[in-house]
């Protein structure tokens, strides 16, 4: 499988910042993976994302070394217009990216900017609304929607551009648990149906680790851990880097240590309780 994202030896420093935000960073993401990016606040996650979607160096200047390639194209050497079609970006707060009078106009906004022909635009907007199951909201005003619905509208706008890589920046942090679970389910479905690659920055891991292929942990601008969610979360170091290991996973790790459960796959509270049945007392 080819890599949709290749970051090689990337370093970046903002002009007025006392230290490097990203240092000697390498990452290769195969097409179709869901990758979770975690790490303490201020570790450089947001800077890394900006270097992938092109905001760095096209909007934020600074000291830049190394390279970022999306679908084989060097981000530094291409323009924002080209990048907008390759990388979709969903902000933490959907309010920051929906602003038109109706939902469908909002979803079409990015396509209008690219000068996509009307017929093609109609097709893509309808397809996005169908994928996210928001067809009945087409003519509603975005500001009247619930937070979960706004998040879907913003994501529909991103998908209408048909990006191969979608970046989600703490997509569930403002959502209640039920709405958050729906969003994570959606990520799993889109990956399966469209083969879209997702890079997700998230502190809240309880839901996401179930659908992720890989976890990458950053600290002080560097990549410090990389592996499957099981490897990273059951490992020794995750918590010292501020990764919010779900409490049920911490419990499972202790029960594994003491031989009270045997299953090494990540379990939900109900599954873990069930697994306690046969164990020794």
């Amino acid at each position, binding site marked *: 499988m080819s890599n949709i994202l290749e970051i090689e030896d990337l370093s970046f420093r903002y002009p007025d910042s006392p230290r490097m935000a990203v240092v000697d960073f390498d990452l290769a993401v195969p097409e179709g993976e869901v990758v979770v990016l975690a790490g303490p*606040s*201020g570790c450089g996650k947001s800077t890394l994302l900006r270097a992938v979607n092109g905001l760095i160096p096209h909007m934020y200047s600074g000291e830049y070394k190394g390279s970022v390639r999306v679908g084989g194209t060097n981000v530094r050497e291409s323009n924002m217009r080209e990048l907008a079609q390759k990388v979709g970006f969903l902000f933490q707060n959907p309010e920051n990216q929906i602003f038109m009078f109706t939902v469908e106009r909002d979803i079409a906004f990015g396509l209008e900017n690219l000068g996509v022909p009307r017929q093609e635009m109609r097709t893509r907007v309808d397809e996005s609304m169908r994928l996210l199951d928001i067809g009945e909201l087409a003519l509603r005003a975005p500001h009247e929607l*619930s937070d979960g619905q706004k998040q879907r509208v913003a994501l529909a706008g991103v998908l209408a551009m048909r990006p191969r890589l979608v970046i989600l920046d703490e997509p569930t942090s*403002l959502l209640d648990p039920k709405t958050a679970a729906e969003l994570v389910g959606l990520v799993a479905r889109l990956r399966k149906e469209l083969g879209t690659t997702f890079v997700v920055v998230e*502190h809240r891991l309880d839901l996401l680790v179930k659908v992720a292929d890989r976890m990458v942990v950053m600290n002080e601008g560097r990549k410090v851990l990389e592996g499957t969610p099981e490897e990273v979360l059951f490992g020794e170091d995750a918590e010292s880097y501020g990764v919010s290991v779900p*409490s049920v996973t911490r*419990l499972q790790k202790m029960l594994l240590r003491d031989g009270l459960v045997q299953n090494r796959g990540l379990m939900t509270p109900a599954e873990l309780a069930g697994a306690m049945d046969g164990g020794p007392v």
Partner: protein
Amino acid sequence: MIEFREVTFVHQNGVKALENVSLKIEPGETVAIVGENGAGKTTLVKHVTGLLKPALGTVLVDGEDTTRTSTAQLSRKVGVAFQNPDHQLFSESVEEEMAFGLRNFGFLPELVEQRVTWGLELFGLSEYRKSSPLVLSGGEKKRLTLACILAWDPRVVILDEPTVGQDSIQKEKLAGTIRMLSASGKTVVVVSHDIEFLWPIQPRVVVMKAGKVVGDGPASRLMQDRGLLDSARVAQPQLVEFYDRLGSRPAAPFADPLEARRWIEEGHRS
């Protein structure tokens, strides 16, 4: 300290954000407000700060009716860290951001200096003292707004989604700060979806749904009420759910969910 008497509030678009809410928070209490998006949590908080005034009913803060008090007067007593820190930060440097409020409240220059240093150290922001708040990460900005508020020592501290963008180490510190505030007699109100963060603090929990208070009681009791939590779309803490599902199975080396948590903490330290 805070009292809502049959408060109703209707948004301009006709949506009832609060419906007949009565709630009394005593001085020194730590209260968590939970509920799904749009349940009315932030609207409730805005009534305490006087940013919103009730359509019907009365809101009293420290015995004073918010409709007869200016937001400036209220802000001396009630410090709020809102969900989106970008709405609160506007100065050229991190230290100026902190000093601004203190000077406005008439603190003397030496005291301003002292409080700024204290706040930046407490929240791990000292290295950014001279930097623009704009270079801070989302999580750091949230900590800065909190530092600004604690610096002027209000009697009521309100935190709206304080854990968004915070890693587990910062969350631990934040939980410690909340315990410290509550031990020093502050009234603390935390609005959050982050049940895993709230539960170990064991606050009084107020559950909201569609503008109404549908549950009110200690965390130890409310967090076990799965029917109530489900209907309000609030998650159950994982360890409480585990313990619940464990039922009568004898295999666990602990007696209740809080003890399980202590066991985990100790195990991870040893």
